[in-house]
């Protein structure tokens, strides 16, 4: 139970590499916060600084009001699940879990009770006497989780704990991790590069790029109200469609124009763009917000390049110049490739971005 604050946290490796560029962040009590970003964006480095495994170049880390920036890892009251699990190969599962408790000088019966409790929670009770090499990858991952929750830390850190599992197990395990969180309510910082993983477990998502925070928000916020082209592109599969358009006024109506499309804007959208002084911008629209419609209501008509049936829906791709526009459409009627599709854009789901900065307008 704790809150964590990062103030202007910076990490430099040598002179040139700045892995984390002065990030500010607050993690609320009991929150499941996910650090999300492409690989190399500084997620691991941030997590390791919080853990005390990486020296902080600049800034502060404050846990429950206490500045822990310069404390060694053991004094921080945190625990961590490593990407490689880092379970100790020369100790049994039991000893792995009991390691921290013994160092805390907990008495034997209490250690035993705690070990069995967390082993039950993570479903490894029958493996307590085994060595890690006698376990599968998934079981080893559970040992790492059990070891981390046994110490009842203020803060729980996880560095891509699911990335070494196969796809099916990964999905099952993330549900379990969330369920464990519902029981422990431990404040958690979870690192991943997988946006669907982040969307499915996070209370809030922090999206990072090149050592900087791009956006912080709930999964719904970062999905619906993406702060930049980068975020809108990174979140969601298939990602947001982007069209370079020009803003044209004809009489009272504002139009978004490019060689393929001339899209009149609704009053709200027009109001949003009123203060914008440039003519060129980027239109972003999520694939499920482009609807198939009849020829006379279409904003755009084009030949279908491919249609990928997904069971519950189908993904239709049309080619505009050399860019693909993807549409998530109902499974029926089935669209055939080569067929002309008529598309209309949901006005309330149009998002506008500055072409230079990529920021949302």
């Amino acid at each position, binding site marked *: 139970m704790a809150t964590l604050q990062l103030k202007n946290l910076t990490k430099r490796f040598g002179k040139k590499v700045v892995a984390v560029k002065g990030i500010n962040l607050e993690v609320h009590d009991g929150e499941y916060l996910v650090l999300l970003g492409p690989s190399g964006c500084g997620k691991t480095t941030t997590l390791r600084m919080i853990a*005390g495994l990486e020296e902080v170049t600049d800034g502060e880390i404050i846990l429950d009001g206490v500045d822990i920036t310069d404390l060694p890892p053991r004094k921080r009251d945190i625990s961590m699940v490593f990407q490689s699990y*880092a379970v100790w190969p020369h100790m049994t599962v039991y000893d792995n879990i009991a390691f921290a408790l013994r160092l805390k000088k907990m008495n034997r019966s209490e250690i035993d009770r705690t070990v069995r409790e967390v082993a039950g929670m993570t479903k490894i009770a029958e493996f307590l006497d085994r060595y890690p090499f006698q376990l599968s990858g998934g079981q080893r991952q559970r040992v790492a989780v059990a070891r981390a929750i046994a*110490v009842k830390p203020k803060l729980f850190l996880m560095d891509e704990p699911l990335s070494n599992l196969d796809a099916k197990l990964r999905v099952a395990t993330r549900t379990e991790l969330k369920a464990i969180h519902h029981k422990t309510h431990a404040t958690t910082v979870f690192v991943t590069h997988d946006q669907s993983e982040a969307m499915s477990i996070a209370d809030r998502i922090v999206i990072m790029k090149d050592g900087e925070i791009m956006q912080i928000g709930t999964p719904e916020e970062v999905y619906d109200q993406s702060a930049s082209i980068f975020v809108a592109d990174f979140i969601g599969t298939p990602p947001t469609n982007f069209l370079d358009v020009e803003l044209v006024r004809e009489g009272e109506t504002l139009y978004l124009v490019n060689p393929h499309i001339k899209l009149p804007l609704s009053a709200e959208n027009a109001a949003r763009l009123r203060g914008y002084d440039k003519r060129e911008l980027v239109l972003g629209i999520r694939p499920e917000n482009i609807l198939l419609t009849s020829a006379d209501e279409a904003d755009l008509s084009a030949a279908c390049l491919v249609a990928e049936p997904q069971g519950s829906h189908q993904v239709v791709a049309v080619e505009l110049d050399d860019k693909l526009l993807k549409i998530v459409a109902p499974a029926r009627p089935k669209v055939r490739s080569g067929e002309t599709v008529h598309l209309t854009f949901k006005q309330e789901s149009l998002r506008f971005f500055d072409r230079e900065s990529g920021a949302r307008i």
Partner: protein
Amino acid sequence: MTKKTRRNIYRTARLTAFYIFVSGVTIAMLLPLYFIVSLSFLSTREAYRYPLPLLPALNVEYKLTHGERGYLLSVYDPIDKEYQTVLDTGDLEKMSVYMKSQLGAPMSVPEIEQQIARLEHEAPVFFTRRKSLLYNYETFFKVAGTGQAVPALIRSLEICAMTIAISLTIGGMAGYAFARYTFRGRDALKFSVLFVRMFPGVAIAMPMVIILVNMGFYDAPIGLSLVYSVGSIALTIWITASIFMGIPVSLEEAAQVFGATKIQAFLRVTLPLSLPGLAACAMYAFLGAWNETVAAIILTQFNPTFSVVVYQTVLGAVGQVNLAAAGGMVMALPAVIFTFFIRRYIHQMWGGVTV
């Protein structure tokens, strides 16, 4: 002949050739070992007869008759299957010594006199004595440097222990640093530690003597173990560096996160995981220090090591190849025992735990 049988024949031939090769190599390695073991149990007479007996005799069958100069002593030769005369003397003292030193089946003078008394009634007389198999070993310890063998043995073990301790602590720490930290000139430095092994010991013997005398370590176990450590530290660094590199840093980091200090993390995680490598280093250091003779001869005076004592005894035992063999065996045995124990340990660790 079908294709299948031809393939079978080919495979059988290949397998046979392989086994012949393997047994050849095995024999080539085991045969010298067998001979030195067997030789160390032979009496001098057995050791110098031709062909050499494959196994030492357990008993000596004597035959005694009257001879030209006194009494004629013959012994039964199990290979030629006949009694062969070995001595013609009236000096019973001499006969007793001969029985002991050449035949390995000693009899005291009164015992010989008893047998001579029997000659009155019957000639020749036959009698059998149990051979003392360990005679060569006893002699070795008696002869070697007039009672120096046991103290030298203890001294050698002491030197080995110190060499292991010094090279494991210094070499292990350096290996850890090479494995875990990046610093300027690391690779060059790591490579350069091998330079100390380039010089033959004899070439730098004089400077070593002078330095050790100045340090007050000449003719002392600590002096020798320092000299031996120089060589084994270099190898220890290389072995432990690669072992430590193979142990993920995250294991240590995890220990730190879960409440351990840096030292505790090392002692509880990295050290146990690196034990097989350290054991290998210990073995190497032991064997190096135990077997080394040249530097030991130069750097000791009144306190020789065991290898020096063996060396001197072997030199002194001209014409007694069986005694030399016994010395060799005594020399080899501790090394074999040590290797055996530590090897089992290495195997156990590597078999049971994978990092």
